[in-house]
């Protein structure tokens, strides 16, 4: 019995935390309780993943079993949700006169959804996981419902999300119609046999690519990121991709191996759309949003490579390489993106001053620590060596080269150099503004401690990944 409890712990704990939190919130009217409860449940989820919740068989294991990579993804999502909670603790207080108790509940449900997707061995589980992941996020984006931008962002995110849900369900129905089963292992075995199944997978894929914010489906990302409050954006930047990639890792094998060029095309399109979109941007959150589109493209590059081998033996190798690369990328990119948004959240402290690049001018003189930390995160996003971002990019392109797609790798990596240009622009504004240029508005009030801790935690994560990639690689590999 204890095995089953342990097996479900990574997703059960956050859900339990949310429900209990809601009850206590209703009864005791003290938001602090819900917050600490969520913290405990998320921490419990992380601990349970490393405590051996992965790879166990048991009740309902044909529907839900966490493997090593899935475990890392769930733990990552829970960690990022935890950090987002810390980030938003007193971010919103000045705005909405009392801290809405529901935020911890919503924050707890997001990693639960991702855990479900990560462990899913059944298509419906993936769909439900996506829904459980998305609904709280819609609410979180629209948190400051008095702010027109937030509501607009949430509406766009929701409507396109519902549209994607329509595609996913119809895709699943086609899969069921042709294979009469939604069990992923059965479907993988039948991959490529019937066109209807392939079309169904493609539709399912479209929904997931929306969640990943890949190229043609990415237009919601800048608006949602800009509309939402910065801690929520930090959460979205780091976790939505984990959920999407967890789903993609399970759905792409259903596609016939010969379909990899489609994925590769979307990957390159995303990198280009993301990088070129951000090049002339003036508002920092939109820049980071477009950069997340580019990073989505990079991950897709690895997944496309993972798909491309015809004979089964090489296919298995490539798929494991692709999943290793993409999981590493998610954790490294997630930490860097979270860190960058964390810095912006600390600087904003609830206000809306640090919106455009102009506000960052001469930051290195006013807030040197913030400037250097932001630079570190941006370098990691750009994939410059001493940071985790470098190894992430390295492993992705390693998978592409292993799959023999040299020219696609070269194209992808040249486009990513364009990406570095706009990170440098932000860094240049912070450090290299001319002496006499008047500086952006100074942030008022002192630095909120929990937010600082969260951002520093992300920084340490990126640094450790930068200098010692072996640890995480080992964890994923096992």
């Amino acid at each position, binding site marked *: 019995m204890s095995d089953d409890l342990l097996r479900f712990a990574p997703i059960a704990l956050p859900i339990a935390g949310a429900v209990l939190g809601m009850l206590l919130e209703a009864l005791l009217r003290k938001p602090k309780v819900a917050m600490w409860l969520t913290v405990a449940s998320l921490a419990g989820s992380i601990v349970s993943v490393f405590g051996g919740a992965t790879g166990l068989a048991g009740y309902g294991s044909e529907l839900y079993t966490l493997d090593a990579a899935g475990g890392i993804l769930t733990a990552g999502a829970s960690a990022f949700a935890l950090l987002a909670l810390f980030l938003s603790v007193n971010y919103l207080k000045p705005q909405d006169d009392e801290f809405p108790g529901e935020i911890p509940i919503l924050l707890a449900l997001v990693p639960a959804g991702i855990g479900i997707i990560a462990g899913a061995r059944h298509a419906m589980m993936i769909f439900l996981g996506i829904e459980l992941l998305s609904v709280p996020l819609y609410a979180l984006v629209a948190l400051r419902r008095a702010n027109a931008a937030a509501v607009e962002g949430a*509406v*766009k995110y929701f*409507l*396109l999300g519902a*549209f*994607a849900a329509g*595609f996913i369900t119809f895709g699943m129905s086609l899969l069921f119609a042709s294979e009469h089963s939604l069990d992923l292992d059965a479907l993988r075995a039948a991959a*490529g046999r019937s*066109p209807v199944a*392939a*079309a169904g*997978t*493609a*539709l399912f*894929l*479209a929904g997931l*690519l*929306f969640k990943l914010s890949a*190229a*043609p*489906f990415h*237009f*919601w990302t*800048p*608006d949602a990121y800009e509309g939402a409050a910065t801690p929520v954006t930090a959460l979205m930047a780091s976790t939505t991709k984990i959920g999407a990639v967890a789903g993609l890792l399970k759905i792409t094998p259903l*596609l*016939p191996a*010969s*379909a990899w*060029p*489609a994925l590769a*095309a*979307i990957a390159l399109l995303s990198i*280009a*759309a993301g990088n*070129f*979109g*951000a*090049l*002339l*941007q003036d508002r920092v959150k939109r820049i980071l949003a477009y950069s997340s589109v580019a990073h989505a493209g990079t991950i897709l590059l690895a997944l496309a490579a993972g798909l491309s081998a015809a004979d089964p033996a090489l296919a298995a190798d490539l798929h494991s390489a692709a999943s290793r690369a993409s999981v590493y990328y998610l954790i490294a990119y997630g930490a860097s993106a979270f860190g960058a948004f964390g810095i912006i959240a600390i600087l904003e402290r609830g206000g809306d001053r640090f919106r455009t690049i102009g506000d960052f001018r001469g930051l290195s003189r006013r807030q040197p620590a913030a400037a250097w930390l932001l630079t570190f995160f941006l370098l990691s996003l750009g994939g410059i060596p001493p940071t985790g971002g470098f190894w992430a990019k390295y492993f992705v392109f390693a998978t592409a080269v292993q799959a023999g797609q040299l020219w696609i790798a070269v194209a992808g990596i040249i486009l990513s150099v*364009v990406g570095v*240009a706009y990170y440098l622009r932000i860094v240049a504004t912070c450090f290299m503004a001319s002496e006499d240029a008047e500086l952006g508005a100074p942030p008022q009030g002192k630095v909120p401690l929990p937010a600082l801790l969260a951002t520093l935690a992300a920084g340490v994560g990126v640094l450790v990944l930068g200098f010692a990639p072996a640890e995480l690689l080992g964890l994923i590999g096992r």
Partner: protein
Amino acid sequence: MSLLPLIPLFPLVGAAACAILHARTLAARRRDAGAAQNERVVGAIATLAIVASFAVSVAGFFIIQHEPERRVAWIVSNWIPTGGQTIDFGFVLDPLSSVMCLVVSGVGALIHMYATGYMRGDKGYARFFTYLNLFVAAMLILVLADSLPILFIGWEGVGLCSYLLIGFWHENMKYAEAGQKAFVVNRIGDFGFLLAMFGAATWCVDAAGKGSFQFAAINESVLAGHVEPWQVTVIGLLLFVGACGKSAQLPLYVWLPDAMAGPTPVSALIHAATMVTAGVYLVIRMHPIFDASVLASSVVACVGAATALFAATMGLVARDIKKVLAYSTISQLGFLFLGAGCGAYDASFYHLVTHAFFKALLFLGAGAVILAMHHEQDLFKMGGLKRALPLEYRTMFVGAAALAGIPLMSGFFSKDEILGGVLAGRPVFGNEQINLVLYVVGAATALMTAFYTFRLIYLAFEGESRSNEHPHANPASMTIPLAALALLTIAAAALGLPSVFGEFKPLEHWLNPVLELGGESGNAAKAHGLSHSAQWLLLGASAAIAMIGYSLARATYGGGLAKSRARAEAMPGIYKTLVDRWYVDELYHAVFTKTLRLAGVVAGLFDAYVVDGAVNGVAASAKRAAAAARGLADGKLQSYSLWFGAGAVALVAAVLLLI
């Protein structure tokens, strides 16, 4: 043997000492301590260093007598390991280099003594002697080197010192430009020398196929025939390009007239006695190459003759006393190459030695005149100095006589030997007539030389004084060297009397081991070329040429300036071109300097707009794409969903097609 390395070492130490003193005077000047007292010390150190080196050279001269090959070689240390061969700091004292050492250090010492007087009161006194000592050291290294790269050290060393000394008064931009021009033209010559060096090291391989930079090895390999003829010619020509650069021959002579910007002792030492002869020394040292390749030696001869004639014409009309001597130096060097080109190496070396003496004498005399006339250099503003400067007049007269080739003077014998060598020497380009033509050119040059030499004497010393300054006497330290050089000029005649007066040829006999390398090829061919009667005829002709030149000059310039002016106007066209130095300077300026500057500007523009343009173009196109990408996101949910729908449909279609 152990003291031979001291020869180049003394001047080096002297240079270092003067440099330190200069640095102290700089510091002292700021506290304006006694400069004069300092000058005496510096002058003494510098001169002593050269004298010591001269003494060791003399000792060396006697030491090598007893050596089997009259040759002593020593290696100081290894220098550059080039993978194949290792280049060492190797030096050799053999008959050729010992005489050169004697000339360099001897004349050098005298000029140093003269300079102590000439430069008195100049605030760069110590700096001057540092450079002068450094120059002598470099020249000695050049002469004593036993391999091409070590010779190249001396070669570029003297180039550096001539750059520093020409531009010594660097306050005046024109002098600085003259210095730069000298170095750049030398560098063009060095380009040829460098390639010749590599060619020799690569192609002149010994029996075992191993190349070497050593003179001995190269000469021996050329003689042994291991080198293909075209390669020998290429090396020969490239060596000659280097020699032209250094010895101011036709294409690369333009820097010498401008080099007169330097103080006069510099002109005397560098641009008359030592550095300019380095080219001839190189040709003589590598003579097996020129013997082996008819084309190379013929080119040397013809260029020599052409330069001699060309420079002499310009000498006729030069107004500046030092410019006259400069053109005469170029012309005499042309003579040397003419002789060397026809195989008369000992004759041209003999003329080299005598020329060193009397040209140095003339320059020092000119210096004395200039100093006396308070730095006035224009001949037309001088005159009647005979009475004021009697010693200078007599010594310069001796020098002029030697230069003009007045019979019984050393110049006469050495020039005659060369002309004889031309007639009896190797047929240029394979046929005899060209030798005859070259002889006629040589004779014409000799005539012009005699004319302009005595033109100088008469304009400067004869007639009535045309300037209002009253010349003051020069200090003893300047007059003693003049006298000494005059004696040397006269004594030099004894070094190489023509064979018709009996077999007393110490210089030729002394140089045999070096010039005998080729067995037949050397001067043996010349010895029995001319019969006694031909030799007498030759002597007579040379004497006649000299006397005609002397009398012509006396006639035109004897009666003072007015009459001579009239005669000059008689032929305006030629006079103008000669005065403007055949417009060569303008030609060079237009051809080289302007095109180079234009090329620089064009390269700059090309770089900024084409190469850089491409880079910025990439950035601009990226920005255009970025603007387009931003245009797509127009904020309307409908367009987002259209993209979504289109993407989904495309994806499904792609998957269906790719199954």
